[in-house]
């Protein structure tokens, strides 16, 4: 039996897993339209590769990765692109983001795809393919997986952790996936193992999922590489990557660093499954499993194409009950409210909860903090949340940083236990965004100051240079006067030079006229007139600008 470590605090909220984990993962009818956001991962959004009216095939790349930290986006089914533009996406800001909207043609016709012979390929080529197949972490952070599959030159991966903890209440998508597709998950893990060469592979699953543990153990017994399925205690947020790392290895990922710094790499079980499909079948990440639970008629898990409107999922789940007030994406602890049920499923969406006042009564009004310290006892980041609250409330942001506000993972444990019902995480988010805003302001101010200082310096330098030039000219004129007798020759030379310069200027002017913007040619006469006027004004301004600044009279 493996000796498990503990992390500080954590809470035991009601599980509510059984509502949705009793039925097998169900498919969905093809939605009419799919709204595929181009930003579904950490890093740069993908660059759209398709235009309106184009027919796309299932699995065809429609968004190209931009920069290093990025991943490709694909058409989830075949159909016609009807729009490429901003559309509402599930994001805490509620703002619209660039999406490709596809009208499904119902044929679900596949783009050419073939398995990757990854063992015969160069590892960096494999990673590039994984990037182009759009594989990102499905545990919530949606970090592009190819980056994490790079073992790196300095730090060797000792422990590969596969996260099947699924600690948030209500969410059961990983639970069902492990129960039903354990072998495929292990095939994905095999690829990860091949890429990273870890000394051990651990699959951490919270002990409230005995069926998933049994299924994974059975599958693990049949593979040829060493892998251990470890049941970890059920405590929220035990599925946080850092917390699970601590429980399984006893090591703490350093603050501000990555788990790779201590030789650990963590992937979600669903990511392993998707990697298997991408590598062994050549299928890009087109769908994910989403738990639909809460105030719906038939809670369950659904395999949804990326871009499927959430209402489509809700319909499949028998529809939301009449008193549903809001929808939440993610779990009840860390989820974000959905501004509308029309928003699309993204790679990050593991769960949709229909919420009603009866199911989740709103919090009593917040009372003053009595420093009881329950939050500190519950904090998995070992912070003093009440101190953070105190300083954030008094806008003492420097202090919040000293007390480690950026080590806060916003898990909500402090909120959960607070007897004064203070929305603590809201205060931390407020403090964080204020600090970011101030840093941006500071950077902007620094840039402006540097620019100003350089300008002052440049003006001073130019003035000096001009003075030097004038002095030189004066000296030159004096020396030129002396050989006046041989003037005729020099005079002629000067005239020739002047003529040449003038000719060159003429040529340049002509050329400039030719390269004037040509799109004004086909305009009606009144527009032409207007443009001519504007041009005239511009010419005048140019003329004024060319006059030496000193002539303005100072």
């Amino acid at each position, binding site marked *: 039996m493996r000796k498990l470590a503990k992390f500080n605090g954590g809470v035991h909220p009601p599980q509510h897993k059984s509502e949705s984990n009793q039925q097998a993962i169900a498919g969905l009818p093809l939605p009419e339209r799919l709204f595929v956001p181009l930003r579904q991962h950490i890093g740069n959004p993908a660059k759209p590769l398709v235009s309106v009216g184009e027919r796309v095939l299932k699995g065809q790349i429609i968004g190209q990765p931009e920069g290093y930290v990025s991943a490709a986006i694909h058409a989830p089914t075949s159909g016609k692109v009807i729009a490429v533009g901003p559309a509402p996406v599930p994001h805490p800001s509620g703002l619209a983001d660039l999406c490709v909207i596809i009208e499904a043609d119902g044929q679900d016709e596949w783009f050419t795809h073939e398995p990757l012979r990854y063992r015969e390929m160069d590892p960096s080529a494999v990673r590039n393919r994984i990037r182009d197949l759009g594989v990102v972490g499905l545990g919530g952070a949606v970090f592009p997986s190819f980056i994490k599959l790079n073992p790196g030159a300095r730090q060797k991966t000792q422990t590969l952790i596969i996260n099947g903890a699924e600690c948030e209440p209500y969410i059961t998508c990983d639970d069902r996936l492990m129960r039903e597709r354990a072998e495929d998950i292990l095939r994905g893990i095999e690829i990860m193992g091949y890429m990273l060469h870890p000394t051990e592979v651990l699959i951490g699953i919270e002990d409230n999922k005995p069926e998933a543990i049994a299924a994974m153990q059975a599958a693990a017994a049949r593979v040829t590489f060493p892998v251990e399925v470890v049941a970890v205690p059920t405590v929220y947020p035990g599925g946080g990557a850092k917390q699970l790392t601590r429980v399984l290895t006893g090591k703490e990922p350093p603050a501000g660093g990555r788990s790779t710094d201590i030789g650990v790499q963590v992937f979600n079980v669903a990511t392993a499954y998707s990697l298997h499909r991408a590598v062994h079948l050549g299928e890009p990440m087109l769908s994910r499993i989403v738990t639909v639970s809460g105030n719906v008629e038939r809670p369950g898990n659904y395999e949804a194409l990326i871009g499927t409107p959430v209402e489509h999922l809700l319909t499949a789940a028998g529809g939301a009950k009449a008193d549903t007030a809001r929808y939440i994406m993610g779990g*009840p602890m860390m989820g974000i409210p959905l501004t509308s049920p029309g928003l699309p499923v993204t790679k990050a969406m593991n769960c949709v909860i229909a919420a009603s006042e009866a199911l989740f009564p709103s919090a009593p009004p917040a009372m003053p903090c009595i420093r009881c310290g329950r939050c500190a006892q519950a904090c*998995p980041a*070992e912070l003093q949340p009440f101190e953070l609250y105190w300083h954030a409330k008094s806008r003492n942001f420097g202090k919040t940083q*000293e007390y480690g506000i950026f080590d806060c993972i916003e898990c909500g444990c402090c909120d959960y236990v607070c007897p004064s019902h203070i929305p603590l995480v809201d205060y931390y988010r407020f403090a964080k965004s204020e600090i970011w805003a101030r840093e941006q302001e500071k950077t902007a101010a620094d840039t402006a100051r540097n620019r100003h200082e350089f300008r002052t310096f440049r003006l001073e330098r130019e003035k000096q240079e001009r003075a030097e030039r004038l002095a030189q000219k004066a000296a030159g004129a004096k020396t030129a006067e002396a050989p006046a007798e041989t003037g005729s020759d020099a005079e002629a030379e000067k005239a020739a030079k002047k003529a040449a310069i003038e000719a060159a200027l003429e040529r340049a002017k002509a050329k400039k006229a030719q390269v004037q913007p040509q799109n004004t040619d086909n305009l009606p006469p009144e527009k032409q007139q207007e443009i001519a006027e504007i041009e005239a004004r511009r010419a005048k301004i140019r003329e004024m600008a060319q006059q030496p600044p000193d002539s303005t009279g100072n």
Partner: protein
Amino acid sequence: MRLPLFRQTISVNVIMLKVMLALLPALFAYIYYFGPAVVVQIVLASLTVLAAEAVMLKLRRQPVLPFLADGSALVTGWLLALSLPATAPWWLTVVACLFAIVVAKHLYGGIGNNLLNPAMVGYAVMLISFPAYMTQWLTPDSLHAAPGLGESFRLIFGSSPPLDGLTMATPLDTAKTQLKLDLTLGEIVKQPIFGLLGGKGSEMVALGYLFGGLFLWQQRIITWHIPAAMLGSLFAVSGLFWMIDADRYVSPVFHLFTGAAMLGAFFIATDPVTGATTPRGKLIFGAGIGLLVFFIRTFGGYPDGVAFAVLLLNLCVPLIDAHTQPPVFGHKNAHKKGSPD
């Protein structure tokens, strides 16, 4: 809609209710050994603190009912009633309560913002202003019939001073003054007011506080740090002096079971608002109180020192907390950074 979508149902008023529940064993022991006068004091104190709290909330334009319902004022009132002599005249209790609620609590910003423990401020002000009244304690029932309810009313609301013999100095006080008269402790504790552990009767009340405190610890309302550190340091330092000269210094067990040591350790020093909050800070805070209690009792001018010790350490809390911040997750192996202050 706020996230997390659900939260624990425990509220501040539940915490305060449990604190009052935990006071019951001691209260029953008190009534059993000293009669029902203390109940009159508790009712009087409760009415006073609730009225004062309501008026102050109104003046500060705060919602009255939600704050009144948090129970914090009631706890202050109960703690004061249990700390003051049971036969104290009514105005003494009322003034102590007013001082605690109006000055120590609301003038500092109300619940959560007060620097000093309100009950101890009320107690200390009375001790300094009216020392004569503050040293008249009821003798245990076995020595003299305790006053009944009617007599208690006459004692508290009447103008006549209590009959001699009904009240006495506390065992702590007695030991202290008689030690000055060159009696040895061995002779002093033979007097009938001393019991097995501390004062007769009052030792049972102290046991009640201990029992209630353990309940609070079991209920996770308090942590073990402050009571353990306070009682531990009081025991250790008094034990040291007792071993040096057992005739001049009372035993460590006597220190733990007399006066307000148990009440202070489990119910006063553990006030979250005014106490230290970090684990190491709580140990320092508790140990500091224990030491001060011993020195005030032994060498100071007052018979008991819990109130002053708590108030002095309350003042040190911001300093203690700032210098005892526990390491944050992921920072443990990093270079030791300066404490955040």
